[in-house]
């Protein structure tokens, strides 16, 4: 919520956001985030193509996966780390397809979802940024990741914004 408003329009890449969210049928989260950023937010349905210049938000109650043909696909199997969408599932799938072309940013959160995901991304040659736990509302998630792997960068919010704007 702090990062999005300060991001400039993007050109060559897409941003995919995976949030632990309550299951429910409204799209108020998408609408809310769309209001806060100049980058257009695209609705995600099964097989929505990923296009550079947009933000995509993982829908509630589905896992988000990435396909070779640059589309997003959905999966409704059991929760992973009590979460659906699970960050691990999305990160692992993205690592598989994008490898080095992938940059992942792990932010504040209440469980260890995401740790296995960033490990997979690092193994696939991608870049991993973790929010400095000192600056996070919920330090558990970034801390868990830091304890289990070596991130490329550990940034506070300001540095995260600068990094994305410089891509």
């Amino acid at each position: 919520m702090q990062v999005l408003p300060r991001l400039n329009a993007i050109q060559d890449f897409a941003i995919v956001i995976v949030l632990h969210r309550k299951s429910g049928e409204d799209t108020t989260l998408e609408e809310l985030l769309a209001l806060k950023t100049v980058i257009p937010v695209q609705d995600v349905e099964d097989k929505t193509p990923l296009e550079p210049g947009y933000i995509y938000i993982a829908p509630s109650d589905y896992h988000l996966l990435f396909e070779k043909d640059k589309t997003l696909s959905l999966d409704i199997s059991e929760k992973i780390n009590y979460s659906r969408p699970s960050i691990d599932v999305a990160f692992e799938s993205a690592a598989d397809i994008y490898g080095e072309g992938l940059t992942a940013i792990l932010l504040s959160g209440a469980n260890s979802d995401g740790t296995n995901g960033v490990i997979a991304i690092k193994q696939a040659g991608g870049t991993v940024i973790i929010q400095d736990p000192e600056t996070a509302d919920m330090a558990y998630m970034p801390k868990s990741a830091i304890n289990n792997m070596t991130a490329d960068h550990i940034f506070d919010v300001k540095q995260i914004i600068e990094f994305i704007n410089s891509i």
Partner: protein
Amino acid sequence: MIDERELDVLINDVYEYYGFDFSGYSHASLKRRVDRVYQMDGFTHFSDFLSKVRSEPEYFKRMVEEITVNVTEMFRDPMFYKVLRNDILPVIGTKPFIRIWHAGCATGEEVYSMAILLKEANLLHKSLLYATDINSIVLNTAKNGVFPLRMMKQYSENYMASGGKKDFSDYYTANYGLAKFGGDLSEKMVFSQHNLVSDRSFNEFDLILCRNVLIYFDKDLQERALNLFDDSLGKLGYLALGTKETIKFSHLHSRYQQFNKEKIWKKIK
């Protein structure tokens, strides 16, 4: 973890040895599911896994059952059932006889939910619910109509959120941690194995539900399935998909009219 190439080899071999065609399945989710069985059964070398699948039909069967299993719940997405109850069933209800197809019914929770809806609308007596799935194990569970008792609290909440006014527990009897749903519901159900990849249309329906099954198919296979549904729907029949599924990428979408923003489409041409 298996890689893309290994997955392709597996898909190929499974087709060659058993005639099951998984080539149209979405690779990302298929890979996840195969990985899960692979790890669960303790394989470390892909060649061992492949060899077992090839040479042991029993193991192949188990693998298919594990990778085609779908998680479902009663009155999942209560708003969807609310629309069914208030807007769709009253229209279908004017027909002398109602046929509904639950394609990919898994363990049957959706079918029992529909039966309850029909009963409350006083339509169950003139309805027949066809429930199909590729997986015979889940079909057996569905036939029995027995679900874990601990799920009933969630299902009851879903039921109420969908507009249900009765006491949900009236629909089942509880015993040894299990909830068995009434025979008055299951006697209106027909269960059968059916493969959306390879099988054809077998009847004409007023309403077809295929919720969160197409997400496991790639676009081409989705198109095939949608054509199959189109062949199986009478004029003015309804097709219902999962909340994040769509027919907009399909060439048939011009002949269907979406109901508000719901993932329910009426066949108009």
